[in-house]
């Protein structure tokens, strides 16, 4: 069970969180302008990173907020967490 730092509440046990898939995949503002192919990749294609992976978590049994985390998929370390809508901190970009 990991410890995850919620940007709102602080460090809490993984039990309180739910995983939300890859981060920074914005829903197109006007989907009708998006090609079938692009829509399919928006729906289904993910980077499956080996290494530092930007992903969404939700502190569902806590403050309820979605936020983002950079996690190294090779060792399960979470390098940093930051609020939804924000970019990763400078040193991780």
């Amino acid at each position, binding site marked *: *069970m990991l410890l995850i730092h919620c940007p*709102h*509440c*602080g460090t*809490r*046990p993984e*039990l*309180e969180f739910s995983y939300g898939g890859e981060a920074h995949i914005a829903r197109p503002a006007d989907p009708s302008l998006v090609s079938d192919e692009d829509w399919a990749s928006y729906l289904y294609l993910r980077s499956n990173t080996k290494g530092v992976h930007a992903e969404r978590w939700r502190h569902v*049994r*806590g*403050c*309820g*907020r979605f936020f983002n985390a950079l996690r190294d998929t090779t060792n399960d370390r979470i390098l940093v967490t930051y609020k939804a809508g924000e970019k990763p901190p400078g040193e991780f970009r």
Partner: protein
Amino acid sequence: MSESMSGLSVASPTERFVLQADAMTLAAAAQALGFDSDVVTSEARDNGAFALLWLGPDERLILAWQDQTPQIAPRVASALADQPHSLVEVTHRQVSRRLQGQSISELLNCGCPLDLEPTQFPVGRCSRTLFNKAEIVLWRRGSNDFHVEIWRSYADYFERWLIEAAQDLPVSTL
């Protein structure tokens, strides 16, 4: 119930509301309820008439203690007027439990994964969290005194578990 867990009692507010809005609006609501200011992250306050519990950055739980006539909605709704917000009654959605006694943190730790050491979870701290498979709102009112809010259909599970676990408390260090 064993002596180490000296009490599991009902602590019923007369009303409960969930208020969601931005920070300015939440502050205005706090004042309308008689608080100097809004609560900060993971804080709960009680002014005798109302309790204000931080649930999330834009979410508060408001409890009313005293009258049977509606107290929360009239005050908050009039104070917030046209400011965008959501005020939803949850009086009957959940029930309250008061847990008091010497080993009460240890008892809660039979199902709650948070560190309840007084320096880590001080008096006045509140948080939504888990008790085994049930979601609870946990509010520390005193060093050995917790207030728990739990959805009504989970209350039986919560209480049974506490009674079961009270038999097993690791009270002494042998």
